């Protein structure tokens, strides 16, 4: 297969295609599922006493602010606008779905990211209304008290809670070194126990999904991701280092709405977030197409926000929605500050992508084929591929448009 075909295949593979319009019959069924689920939740006892509207009121946020947030989330979850009231109601019922958050071999960066997640409304949603039954960083109880609190929560909400995991699982020699809790469980035992009674497991951050930086060569602790350990449970991967809080909230909300996990790609990542390629929505994309590149830091290109591909940006190989939702309440993202993407939501980014060198200068194969001879050649190859990518996109939106008219 020549490169052109390989690229075309990669960018048009079913696994990465995002279907934003599935036709009326599909949405009708979906709406029924959601309405059923929400009415069940409405009748279920609340896991916490927290009422979202009281929380919002206390923070001086109006119903209008709340609905604005809900419509943004509706769009992010790729649902048509008429679903907004359902999303809003799901947010109100979030305290019916318990979440148990455990930290394994991590840096607490994802908890950190969520602490300052999106607009103030979502902070409240996350912190007060979603029942964070057990988060090592945020919980009120500590030590032995927290331990029994965890046991109790697992028993009460058996088979109903979402188990959110942050951090990788060390299984290599010396794994008995990494222990947790009063019983001195290894991380693997702890994960098995908490995930065992969960409805679904959400692996948050690249450590929990693929092993992350702890798994970087020579992987001293034998770190692996949650999906390598937990079997027989639905697993949702939300990689990136740190994972974007918007994607965590979106996933949890989707679970509240449907009782099911969102549509996933071949790496178990929700498509609503990871169906996008950084490169396709990058604010500097036009410069790539025009062949305008930053050639060295501080040059004319850097001053004018040109494409960072030659400075080692891995945007073309990375699937995530950073270029759309950005970070820190949408304030900025790495490319906005003039640093290339390091592919932090891709498997093995820690060995393949996390450096300043363009792919052509590394010993690793780009997913698009062999090791390139020079940056310029590779850039050229991608340029053609990008053209194909756009064509595929255009084709999808054309059919989508038709369905709309029917």
């Amino acid at each position, binding site marked *: 297969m020549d490169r052109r075909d390989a690229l075309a295949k990669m960018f048009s593979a079913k696994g990465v295609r995002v279907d934003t319009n599935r036709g009326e019959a599909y949405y009708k069924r979906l709406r029924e599922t959601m309405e059923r689920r929400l009415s069940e939740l409405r009748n279920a006892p609340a896991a916490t006493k927290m009422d979202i509207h009281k929380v919002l009121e206390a923070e001086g946020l109006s119903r209008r602010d709340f609905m604005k947030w809900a419509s943004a989330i509706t769009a992010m979850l790729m649902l048509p606008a008429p679903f907004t009231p359902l999303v809003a109601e799901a947010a109100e019922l979030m305290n019916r779905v318990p979440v148990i958050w455990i930290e394994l071999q991590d840096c607490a960066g994802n908890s950190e990211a969520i*602490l300052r997640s999106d607009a103030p409304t979502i902070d409240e949603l996350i912190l007060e209304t979603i029942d964070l039954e057990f988060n090592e960083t945020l919980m009120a109880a500590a030590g032995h008290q927290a331990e029994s609190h965890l046991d109790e929560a697992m028993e009460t909400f058996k088979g109903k809670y979402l188990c959110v995991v942050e951090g990788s699982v060390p299984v290599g020699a010396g794994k008995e070194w990494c222990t947790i809790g009063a019983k001195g469980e290894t991380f693997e035992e702890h994960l098995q126990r908490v995930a065992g009674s969960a409805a679904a497991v959400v692996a948050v951050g690249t450590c929990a999904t693929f092993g992350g930086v702890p798994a970087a060569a020579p992987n001293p602790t034998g770190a692996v991701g949650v999906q390598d350990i937990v079997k027989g449970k639905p697993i949702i991967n939300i990689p990136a280092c740190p994972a974007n809080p918007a994607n965590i909230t979106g996933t949890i909300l989707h679970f509240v709405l449907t009782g099911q996990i969102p549509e996933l790609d071949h790496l178990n990542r929700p498509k609503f977030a990871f169906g996008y390629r950084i490169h396709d929505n990058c604010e500097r994309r036009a410069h790539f197409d025009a062949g305008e590149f930053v050639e060295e830091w501080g040059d004319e290109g850097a001053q004018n926000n040109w494409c960072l591909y030659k400075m080692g940006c891995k945007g073309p190989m990375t699937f995530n929605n950073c270029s759309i939702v950005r970070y820190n309440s949408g304030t900025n993202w790495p490319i906005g500050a003039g640093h290339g993407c390091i592919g932090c939501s891709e498997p093995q980014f820690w060995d393949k992508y996390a450096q300043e060198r363009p792919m052509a200068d590394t010993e690793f194969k780009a997913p698009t084929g062999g090791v390139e001879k020079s940056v310029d050649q590779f850039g050229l190859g991608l340029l053609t591929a990008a053209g194909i990518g756009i064509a595929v996109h255009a084709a999808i939106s054309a059919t989508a448009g038709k369905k709309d008219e029917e």
Partner: protein
Amino acid sequence: MRKRVELIEKIEGEAEVSYTYEGDRTVDAQIRFLSGRGIESILTGRPPLDALAITPRVCGICGHAHLIATVRALEACYPELRISPKAEAVRELTLTLELLQNHFKWLYLTIWPLLFPRESVTMKAVEPSRIAAEAIALLAGQYPHNSYAIPGGIVGEITPLERLGVADRLERLWEIFRREIADVQMQAFLRCDRIEELQRKEGDFPRILREILDRGWERLGCSHDRFIAFGSNGLFVSGKSLATRITHSLDLRHLREEPVEGSLALHVLYRGKVYETGPLARAMLRKTPLIREAHRRWGDSLPTRIMARVCEIPHLLQYAMQLTRDLDMDAPAWIDPGPLPAQAQGTGIVEAARGSLIHTVEVREGKIAEYRIVTPTQWNLGSGPADRPGVAQKALIGLHRDDQAELIFKSFDVCSVCTTH
């Protein structure tokens, strides 16, 4: 002799403290950290610049300090290297913002719940830390975990819009300090040396202080009264201090790390002695009037330690505001330092939220041959044998109550992920 093992959670990661009692009095406390990732061995063998993407991920709450320490260590590998005042100022600014957000969060998520367990104040921690993180994101892309600093400067251009955004957020942080922590005038506060004056003010910090005094805990948590700070910048000075006797010359060759049985954290010593690092050490070396007064009154105890960290906030804010105001927008962001020497050694020092962070890199044949990270919590929470206790250990000895022990332990602010890295 009675023994008790306490798990310390609600910190980044987990720590274990084994107390030994005689009667109801603590005679020994051994601190253990039970998980690690081996970051230093991951770095070995990689091209030196790759460390820029790996080290920030040591820690989710002070990763920025790790990035700057790495950049400085790499820059020290060059025989000669110049960076522009703008790049230096922007790095200082993002670093200062990280300290600020840590200070706010520590006060409300770690200290407050131990003194006032029935009052939930999560939002008081979230709001300022979100604002500080946004300001970092404006300059560095995102927070946590960015890699915008590189040998020779920073990658991107700062526009007046970003500068305005940062200035605005610094103002908002100061407003939050006045509204929540202590209702004071900044200039008056920076000069203030009268504890009574502060104690009478409105705000959460005077309330914390009054609570500790009411409980009669003001002399608890005294340690070795030896302080050290390796980093210096426009605000901090390096040196060590035995009580108030200050020496400014430090030599990193006297730094030694030793393993602790049953723990993944290394104990660190300077000339064979343990030292306290962090806001209290910095305040002692800078001779901050209010903290010197607290130290004169209560020694290196619990309220002095808490006060030193809280009172660093206005100093940091003023420093950050000045950096933002004086930013030379026309200076280059990056000055080409040329290729990194294939054989070299360099050390990078940063004052992080919890104290001095030291990175040392050795480059051979163009690859990292050895990378060493010494974190602040290794100083403060290092565990020595009962006859040579570390800083927090010494502070815990002699206590009679469990609630006192937890508060004193956490006043050092544990970051277990950094300690073992």
